[in-house]
């Protein structure tokens, strides 16, 4: 199995978008697209599945709510139900309004932080990670599309990519 890819460089996001659509129409598999900024609608054009990050955040929020509720129920009602300034500590519900700010903040805290960590893990981002950038210009003003090469379609693919408006074409071994 060859692991060669064609890297086509573009200088305009509109050209890139139409190129992505064209390449997908021709049934070529786009390995990756590198852009210096989010290109609106690129994920849809590439046919990427929608993110499930929001669903994880909802579940993390539920965990946070459960943690806050259990913690305060145990500490304030079960373990040592003191009379603090006349607040009723007989049952959780009687003293609940006082717990709501903490319940809310914990829900937000868990949802936000765990979702961010999930994002880092799923995107494989961490400190000292080696950058995977094939060309430094893609962080500035160039867009790069990587298309896998299968067997002898290299020339045909190059022609197609040039026709879509690519400014540079490079065939390299796939690194990542």
């Amino acid at each position, binding site marked *: 199995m060859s692991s060669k890819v064609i890297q086509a460089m573009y200088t305009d996001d509109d050209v890139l978008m139409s190129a992505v659509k064209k390449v997908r129409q021709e049934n070529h598999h786009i390995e990756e697209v590198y852009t210096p900024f989010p290109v609106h609608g690129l994920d849809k054009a590439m046919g990427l599945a929608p993110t499930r990050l*929001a669903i994880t955040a*909802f579940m993390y929020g539920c965990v946070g709510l459960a943690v806050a509720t259990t913690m305060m129920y145990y500490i304030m009602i079960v373990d040592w139900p003191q*009379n603090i300034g*006349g607040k*009723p500590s*007989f049952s959780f519900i009687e003293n609940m*309004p*006082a717990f*709501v700010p903490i319940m809310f903040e914990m829900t937000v805290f868990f949802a936000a932080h765990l979702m961010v960590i999930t994002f880092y893990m799923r995107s494989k981002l961490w400190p000292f990670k080696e950058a995977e950038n094939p060309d430094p210009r893609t962080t500035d003003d160039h867009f790069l599309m990587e298309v896998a090469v299968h067997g002898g379609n290299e020339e045909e693919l190059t022609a197609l990519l040039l026709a879509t408006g690519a400014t540079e074409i490079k065939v390299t071994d796939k690194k990542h």
Partner: protein
Amino acid sequence: MYTFSNRLRLFAIISMILGGILVGVSFATTPGSVEEMKAHEAAHGHGGHGEEASHDDGKTAHHDDHKTDAHATNDHHGETSHDDAHASEGHHDAGAGHHNSAKHDEHKLTQLQNKPWAAIYIAAFFFMMISLGVLAFYAIQRAAQAGWSPVLFRVMEGITAYIIPGTISIIILLVLCMPSLHLNHLFHWMDPKLVDPDSEIFDTLTYGKKAWLNVPWFLIRAVIYSAIWVAYRQLSRKFSLRQDDADDNSNFKKNFRLAAIFLVLFLISESMMSWDWIMSFDHHWFSTLFGWYVFASMFVSGITVIALVTIYLKSKGLLPYVNDSHLHDLAKFMFGVSIFWTYLWFSQFMLIWYSNIPEEVTYFVTRIEDYNLPFFGMIALNLIFPLLILMNSDFKRLNWIIVIAGTVILFGHYIDVFNMVMPATVGPNWSLGMPEIGGILFFLGLFIFVVFTALTKAPLLAKRNPFIEESKQFHY
């Protein structure tokens, strides 16, 4: 152009007539004297109202027991507040009325007589509030130069047409509440005996507030608020229609400036309106964020009604340029403002619950004791249900989800107004019966009639709005 469908017009008229009949019957069955009330209670012995009454007694008794248990560990504020609740509820009979059965009967009779009036007032206020909320939303869209909403402007203008009959009906009701007419005791502070130092029911607290709470100034204020809202609505509508045939954007710019001015005046007038028309029912009680709280309630109801009317018109094929992204945005507003409402509800409740100061806490003591289900059920209707159902981005694009969520939100905010008005006017004698349903039906019919008539008066798409093209292409 939209034509008022005959079926909807018929529905509106039937709703008004049926509502009028129900309200009329409930006025006719209201006891006129203590004897009549007693006879009525005896006749219905252990069924219907009798059961309800005994149920209430049971509840109060239970709470009295509870008071000795729970409040015993509490400090003295708890006790005082509890007594204070009964005193203010007992129409300033200095606490004696609680044990004095003649006074107690008279007190109950007053509350029963207030009931149909309060029911009409709540329904009138609720529908006026919806159209006022839409007016505020509309002005915000204009002032913010929103690019997504201009395709909905005509729908909003249609709904705000109700502001005229809405404020008029409220003013008529306020006039009918004047004590000189002897019709009801909704606004108890209006009773001249309370501010008369020689009277036996002289009330120092009310006396201290009489510079603000006096009938002429109260009615003048009501007219001023209404005039501000109606004037903005009429002018904005005029400029909006003129913009359709204009050669330049001068009308659009006028509308922009007008919206900015209106929003300043609106926030002031709305806040004062909420003190006058809602908070003064509990004239011994005060809360600083009350204006915002009422605003959040009207804002979310207004946005919900925009969404519902839009869905209705779209289902008739009349709004081809409105896509599911517009509905998604409206649903997002419904979701966000529902949370905002809850934030204010909780902020008001929790601060007062936490500090438990007698003069403030009576408000919630009466509500938790006598209105437990509506008071807390409101949270399920206005927060939990919309929160869970409208959180999903895909759900916000589905018409039937928005309709269900919208119906629940509207019912929840009706209950919200109910909770603000009823405890001070009818006390524990509340129910969701004939007068309440009649009031809702009557004003619902009027609302539908006025709104959909206004919708027939202009094309449903604003033509020369500078943002209309962006709005038509809007997608999220």
